[in-house]
């Protein structure tokens, strides 16, 4: 019983901290936390695909960036100003895009999958870089996005309200991912990750499982992208660049791949480190590489794994984790 109790206390404490404490801190902490939350949605999509699905993609940024661009284009060109319709259209496009790409990509060997996803992402980046009749503005990106009107009494122009908005959406996303992992589909997906050969012999259509995982993960990345567009009010091709997809992988591993809290911790550590390091040197990517090498060699479970080990050493014993 005390295990359940400590869990409830933990979540309660977390909720209090996120809802009440953060807003009381200086404003830049609020916006930083908002961005970390949005990034962790992105990272959790990669965690779903790579950690639970076992598919390493170098192109998840494609879905993040495409949805950010779709929001930008739809709103700044006055095609669709309604938040709900814009979101619906964007997510539908992401579903179609990921279903098409995924159907090709998940059929092949894992190595080829990685290169293919890189290729797809690169294609999208090239399209954004080349100004299509001044829609995408190429290298400059698109400015002038405005915070959406949800039709509620609270305006999202306010940083605080937007923070709560992101908190709610993020919470829903994480909860949905949790349910998916614990469901029959989730169990089978992890089985496909660990032993596709046996799963096929048991009668599972592993292609379909992988495709569904790919589409789900794309949609979540897309949700992150939408939030990002409305948060940042400006999108440029770096959101589609393969480096950003690589960063997502890094964040996932730093946090702890295939774990529930990994994405948030990974996004937190990454963002914090990036801001701190970038104040001293411009060689962030090299430092990021070194950190990553250290994580892979010495901290294989990421932050979550490290904390788990600590917990295990402080309390005797501990159950085996997947």
């Amino acid at each position: 019983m005390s295990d359940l109790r400590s869990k409830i206390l933990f979540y309660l404490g977390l909720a209090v901290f996120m809802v009440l404490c953060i807003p009381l801190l200086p404003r830049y902490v609020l916006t930083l936390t908002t961005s970390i939350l949005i990034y962790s949605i992105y990272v959790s999509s990669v965690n779903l695909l790579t950690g639970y699905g076992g598919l390493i993609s170098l192109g998840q940024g494609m879905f993040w960036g495409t949805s950010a661009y779709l929001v930008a284009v739809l709103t700044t060109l006055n095609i669709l100003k309604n938040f709900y319709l814009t979101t619906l259209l964007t997510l539908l496009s992401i579903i179609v895009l990921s279903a098409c790409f995924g159907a090709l990509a998940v059929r092949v060997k894992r190595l080829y999958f990685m290169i293919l996803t890189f290729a797809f992402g690169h294609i999208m980046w090239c399209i954004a870089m080349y100004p299509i009749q001044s829609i995408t503005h190429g290298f400059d990106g698109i400015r002038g996005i405005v915070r959406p009107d949800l039709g509620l009494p609270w305006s999202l122009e306010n940083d605080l309200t937007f923070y709560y908005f992101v908190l709610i959406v993020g919470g829903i996303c994480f909860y949905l991912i949790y349910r998916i992992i614990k469901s029959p589909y989730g169990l089978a997906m992890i089985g496909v990750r660990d032993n596709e050969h046996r799963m096929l012999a048991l009668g599972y259509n592993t292609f379909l499982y992988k495709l569904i995982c790919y589409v789900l993960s794309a949609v979540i990345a897309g949700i992150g992208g939408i939030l990002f567009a409305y948060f940042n009010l400006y999108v440029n091709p770096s959101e589609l660049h393969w480096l950003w997809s690589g960063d997502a992988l890094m964040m996932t591993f730093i946090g702890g791949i295939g774990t529930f809290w990994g994405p948030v911790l990974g996004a937190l550590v990454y963002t914090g480190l990036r801001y701190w390091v970038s104040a001293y040197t411009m060689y962030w990517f090299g430092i990021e590489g070194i950190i990553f090498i250290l994580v892979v060699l010495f901290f294989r479970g990421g932050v979550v794994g490290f904390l788990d080990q600590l917990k295990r050493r402080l309390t005797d014993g501990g159950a085996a984790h997947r």
Partner: protein
Amino acid sequence: MEALRIDRVCKNFGALRVLNRVSFAISTSEKRVIIIGPNGAGKTTLFNAIMGELQPSSGHIYLMSKDITKMARHRRPHLGLGRTFQIIDLLPDFTVQENVLLALQAHRNFRYRMFKPVRRYKDLYEKTGWLLGQVNLEEKKDLPIRALSNGEMRLVELLMGIAAEPKIVLLDEPAAGLTSSESEWLADVIKRVLKEVTVVMIEHDMKIAFMLAERIIVLYQGMVIADGKPSDIRANPKVREVYLGSESTD
């Protein structure tokens, strides 16, 4: 009714002919068919072809009178086909229970559902518990596969192939690597749990083969050289010639 029919199946790997016009039919009334043959005879390749892991170079395979020669691999178990592997092929990080759950879940239409947690599907767990009880592994159900002994893993491997109640099951050397008493226990389990199922088994252990078999098919260099009752096979001169010097019959 016909459970399995192999019709002139050939399989070539480049210049190497591993299966050479293999033909036989097994009806659902037959319960224990054992395939024997020296190493390299093509037995596992035959199983792989039946399961769809490889495509025959020519010939046809019929399961329950349906031509499955070109059918996708994952659809065949749904016609009532099960298989176990010679080299244990489980999910090592999953618990014993989870392995069997997956085997059962494969045939349920909720296997794509995403919102109800697996543990709420009570009947799945009941069935799993029953199956594990049949092989005395119920206390170990929460252990990861890695923690089991070889003999116990073989039992789980067996369960994986039969959990979904196939009409015909392919057992590939289910007793490989087991001690004498462990293999007797396994044979006993097979006799008990698979009473009504058509079992097609590859076996190297002659004792078990002749003990369990109603019918024996002998494969040699990819060809069927003998096919019939155990007593006939024992007396067959071709079979003695193939085995003399390489393995002992009794």
